[in-house]
């Protein structure tokens, strides 16, 4: 049986892990390589590193982080943030990542999904979607709109339409982030996650808002999401991966036992 995955997200800025609320006010909380090692030992199923480094000249730091992580951690991990072309993808994969998450660049140039999938395989290409609830209109029938540039810029594309298009272009997975829920610890956007995970045949990762194991239970119960992304609930030591998995397992949700 396929387990539901718990994925920890590490936002990396200039080599340090940070965490913000609703995409703003990031504070540094630790060394991403050490944190990745700790979560691996706790039994996390997968890791994601988002490079949110502001200045482009410091971009190479993420490659060093990826290389260090890859040496000691034998579970899959993805890298996202600022990846704009096949060359960027190549460098991140060469450094040891399994998957690449593309977001803004995919909206600006949807062909990047296609060419990335053709070159490295669909399993490598994760479409990151930053989504905000808006009024339902004929142009935005789902009531959810795609935003880019770290959640700052609306692009007038309906979230469901974009998910389906990404599937057709060859994306292997969708990481669905609710801007409204991000960093609130109030739970995932269940309506949005259900909507997108049922609209596409590829796996969907629920993201944004997780504060307690209950929130993960809720999203797995109410949607077809294959994975849930968490950050602050573990970064601040409120829960360990084992505690979260134990809670889900008790509720009958299949998780990977760490044995």
């Amino acid at each position: 049986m396929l387990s539901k995955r718990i994925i920890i997200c590490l936002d990396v800025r200039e080599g340090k892990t940070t965490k913000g609320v609703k995409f703003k006010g990031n504070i540094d909380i630790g060394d991403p390589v050490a944190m990745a090692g700790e979560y691996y030992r706790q039994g996390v199923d997968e890791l994601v590193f988002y490079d949110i480094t502001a200045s482009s000249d410091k971009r190479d730091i993420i490659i060093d982080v990826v290389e260090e992580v890859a040496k000691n951690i034998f579970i899959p991990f993805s890298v996202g943030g600022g990846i704009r072309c096949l060359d960027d993808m190549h460098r991140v994969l060469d450094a040891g990542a399994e998957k690449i998450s593309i977001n803004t660049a995919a909206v600006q140039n949807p062909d990047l999904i296609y060419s990335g999938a053709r070159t490295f395989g669909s399993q490598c290409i994760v479409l990151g979607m930053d989504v905000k609830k808006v009024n339902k209109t004929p142009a935005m029938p789902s009531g959810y709109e795609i935003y880019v540039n770290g959640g700052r810029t609306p692009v007038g594309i309906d979230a469901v339409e974009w998910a389906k298009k990404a599937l057709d272009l060859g994306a292997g997975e969708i990481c669905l982030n609710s801007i409204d829920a991000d960093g609130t610890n109030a739970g995932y956007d269940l309506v949005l996650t259900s909507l997108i995970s049922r609209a596409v045949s590829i796996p969907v990762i629920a993201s944004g808002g997780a504060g307690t194991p209950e929130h993960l239970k809720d999203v797995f119960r109410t949607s077809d999401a294959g994975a849930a992304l968490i950050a602050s609930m573990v970064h601040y030591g409120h829960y360990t991966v084992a505690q979260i998995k134990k809670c889900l397992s008790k509720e009958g949700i299949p998780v990977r036992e760490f044995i």
Partner: protein
Amino acid sequence: MTRAAYSHETAETRMVSIIDYGAGNLTSVARALRHIGVTCRITDQHKEILSSERVIFPGVGAAGKAMEVIRRKNLDGVIHEVIAQKKPFLGICLGAQVILGRSEEDNTACLNIIPGTARRFPDRGIKVPHMGWSDMSVVRSHPLLKGVNGRAQFYFIHSYYPAPEQKEDIIATTDYGGAFACIIGRDNVVATQFHLEKSGRHGLKILKNFCDWDGRV
């Protein structure tokens, strides 16, 4: 013979070759081997492959492209020769598919080391690719699985799965919309659909077992 030369020769014959056919994920396998203390090289050189103690055939990507590169580099003959030498041979992921007779992916004729077909998961009812951690049911014991916890889960990421013609070639199965073969093997050849190098300590354990295996079952 000097001691240095002797140890060099020992290193050469102990060496694990990872076959380079332009597929992704080769360095992850090399890193995992280094972590468990095994010397390895990623190579497409026929002589190096034929002189190594054992061979790993990993990879992610598409079957059609993979077979094209394998033929262009004349690696198909080398792979068959290394297997005829009775050297331990391990396929991983795409490597577990292209050792079959053919693949439904790009309708590709493959290496036909184990008769069978790599089939696509049906698009109805389940998400494709099969992505994530699943457990397995062991069909027959194998040196590769020595000491591996029966409840262990492994990391899968694939849209096609191995379907050997003969039941005897199935070592373990996994359930995803029905049972499929997740470990196959015959004589000195064994292959896992899941990623040993990304399956935490249980994956590393199987990789270690492979490196200790003499190729006999």
